[in-house]
Structure formats: C-alpha cells, structure tokens
C-alpha cells in the first residue's frame, strides 16, 4: 500500500477543516471495507486518511418518532443488533445483513456504502425507497440532499471535495406502509448484486389501494436508479397482480444495465421485473400486517 498520513479528528469542525485544506487529497475512513481494499489495489491513493470514528456524532444513531437518524460511521452490525431498528426498518435491515460476511458487517457502514457510490451498493436502493435524506457538511455549513441525488457515477458522489457525510435520516414509517429490499446473486450469500430492488408502499386504510410507492434499482446502471415513474403510476391503483406488473414493467424500462462478468442486459432486465413484483408484494403484505 502507498504511504499516507493518518489523522483522527475528534469533532466535525476539525474534520471539515482538514478536508478544506486537503480537498481531493483526503479520504474519509469509516469502516474501511472499501477504502482499504481500494488503496491496497492502488486504485485509491489519498495523501491523507481521515478517520471518522473519532467523531462521536458520526458514531451515534437515534431511533425516534421522527424516524431513524444514522451517523455516517454507524456499522451494519450495529443496526441489525438493535431490535428497534429491525422492527421499524426491515428493508434497511435486509440490505445491511447481506453486505459481506459477519466480520465485514461489523466494520462496514451505511454512510460508507453510500459514499462509495457503487452501482451495486446494497443499502442505496433501500435508502432511496425509504425516502432517506443525507446531511452533508462543509466549510459553509450543512446541506441536505435526498439519497437519490448523491451518486453521480461509479465511485463519484455529489459531495464536494471539502464536504463529508454527517448523517442519513430515514423518515419514520407512516400508517399502512411497508418496504422491502431484495437482490439476486448466483450464490447463497456474500456476493455482489446482479440486480436488486428496494420498494416502499403506502396503502389506503383498508389496505386495498396504493396511495404512493417508491421503487429503486441497483446494479442496472452507472448508479443506483430511482425509478420514480414506476412508483408514481401505482398511486390510486388497486393492489392487484395487474398493477404490480405495470410497476414492474416500468421499473424494467428504467433499468439501463450493461453486460459484464456478473450478468447480461437481458437477464438483469428480467431480474428487475421479477424483483420489483416480489419486493412490492412483500412491502404490501408488511403494510397490511
């Protein structure tokens, strides 16, 4: 691995000052499960690595009536070890429980998964479906962006070189709502998604009609995709096989996959169709429960 300086700021303002001075020469270290691998492979060569884990507010999360606020350095394992998060945010739990194996989940963070901006990042479609909003902070103070606006290209985000991710806020589930995240991999576990879908729905009080829905896709474009039209067309529609199929077809149309070693365009489009139906069906059954 190349040589670099290492710093452990203990406050957000100290970290922001370091980024303001170093800009693109600095990288934030959260769980390190992508950063250290990228540096060892020579793909990433920052001159300064800034450890986020000395900053108490990045390690905290709050589960309250307004939702779940995740500090940027909260690990996957912290979340699925908390019964309150497991109960309230099953779609997020479905994503964080399948990223790598147990030792990876003990280090890997949701914030890091988002900032790594891989098209296949498992938490990202789940966060988009859940309507999550990221808070970034730089020298001019904090600003908020919906998660679907964070990833711009593989490995590239909307964060300026002098900004860091402070937290991610997931709104509290409203009445008659449900969400689900699923991916397809050819193995049983510990693999990178060939295609994935996160869906969330809000139903009428009797559970028979969609009030709204959000659908997001992974591994079928240069970034995770918010298939806004696919979710929007469900609003006002009855919960039926026909309406689910319409949404699945619209999600498939929003997918722009490539052929690569993990899958083909044809297979991935088909997978998006199937996974959209399956995640919607599961989200509906959670909303009706």
């Amino acid at each position, binding site marked *: 691995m190349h040589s*670099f*300086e*290492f710093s452990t700021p203990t406050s957000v303002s100290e970290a922001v000052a370091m980024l303001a001075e170093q800009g693109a020469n600095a990288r934030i270290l959260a769980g390190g499960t992508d950063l250290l691998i990228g540096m060892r492979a020579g793909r990433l060569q920052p001159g300064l690595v800034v450890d986020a884990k000395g900053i108490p507010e990045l390690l905290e999360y709050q589960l309250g009536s307004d939702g779940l606020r995740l500090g940027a350095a909260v690990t996957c394992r912290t979340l699925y070890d908390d019964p309150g998060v497991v109960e309230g945010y099953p779609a997020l739990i479905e994503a964080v429980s399948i990223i*790598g*194996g*147990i*030792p990876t989940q003990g280090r890997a963070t949701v914030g890091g998964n988002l900032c790594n901006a891989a098209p296949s990042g498992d938490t990202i479609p789940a966060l988009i479906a859940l309507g999550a909003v990221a808070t970034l902070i730089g020298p001019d103070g904090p600003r908020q962006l919906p998660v679907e606006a964070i990833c711009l290209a593989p490995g590239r985000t909307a964060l300026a070189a002098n900004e860091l991710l402070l937290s991610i806020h997931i709104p509290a589930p409203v009445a008659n709502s449900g969400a689900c995240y699923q991916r397809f991999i050819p193995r049983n576990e*510990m693999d990178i998604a060939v295609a994935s879908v996160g869906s969330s729905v809000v139903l009428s009080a009797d559970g028979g009609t969609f009030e709204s829905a959000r659908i997001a896709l992974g591994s079928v474009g240069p970034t995770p995709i918010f298939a806004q039209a696919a979710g929007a067309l469900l609003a006002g529609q009855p919960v039926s096989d026909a309406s689910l199929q319409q949404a699945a077809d619209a999600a498939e149309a929003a997918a722009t996959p490539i052929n690569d070693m993990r899958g083909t365009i044809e297979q991935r489009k088909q997978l998006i169709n199937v996974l959209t139906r399956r995640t919607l069906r599961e989200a509906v059954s959670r909303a009706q429960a």
Partner: protein
Amino acid sequence: MSKVHVTTTVNGEEKEFLAEPRQSLLEVLRDELHLTGTKEGCNDGNCGACSVVFDGTLVCACCVLGVEANGKRVETVEGMATREGLHPLQQAFLEETGMQCGICTPGFLMASNELLKSNPNPSEQEIRFWLANNLCRCTGYDKIVKSVQKAAAVMGGA
C-alpha cells in the same frame, strides 16, 4: 511518512508499537508484535484467516489499519488457550479434525468463539452462516461445523 506511536491492549496486555499508517492491523500483529497466530490469506476481507476481535467486534485484521488500534482492545488466537489448557473450541477442533493444513484455523477459532458468545447453542445453519466469511480449502467444512457443535456442547450451550 512518519511512524505513529500506538498504545493498545492485545489479549489483555498493554502493548506499544510504532506503525506506518499504511500497515494493516494484520501486519502490525505479525510484524511488529510478533503474534503470528493470525494468518494472512487473501488480504482483502474475503477469506477470514485473519479474523480477530477488535474492540468487541469480529473483524478481518487485514481490513483495519494498525493505527486504528490506538486505545482499543484486540483479541487474537494467542489469547484463547490458558495455562490450564486449550480452549474447548481448540480441543474440539483437534478431536473432530476440524483442520488439515491449519492456515484457516485461527480465523475459524476466533469467529466460532464470537458466535458461541452471542449464541451458545447455534443450529448447523447458524454456524454455517456465521462462518461464511471463513474459507477452508481442506476440510470441506463439515468437520469444522462438527467441531463447533461439539465445543458448544462441552461449553454447556447444548
């Protein structure tokens, strides 16, 4: 680059070392602290040969920087056996031949120990799922699973 002075606790003992930021916890354990029980396999978080417990959490030591250990607690395979004898997991791996070449064994022992701490009586599926981040190219895994089941029984979980 200048070396960083790190003070950490390894298997209950305070240790100090100088490390370059680019050295992983795995390299520091082996090359600076001469604790060579923790093995290097893939060096990218896939194989689990370097599994250690870092501040109470099972991790791959290759995916942690040595300088991150400052002020933290690290547990390695060297801390498992006591003067009185082997840890029940080590004993069970011996009796059930849960190892052949042995390279993956320290990682399996550390990971299995963490499993039994949180789940003293795991099902076969739970064992296999938990150990999915540990690769063995000799045993075919069945003997490892049996070893963990035996240790769980000896330790009173079953």
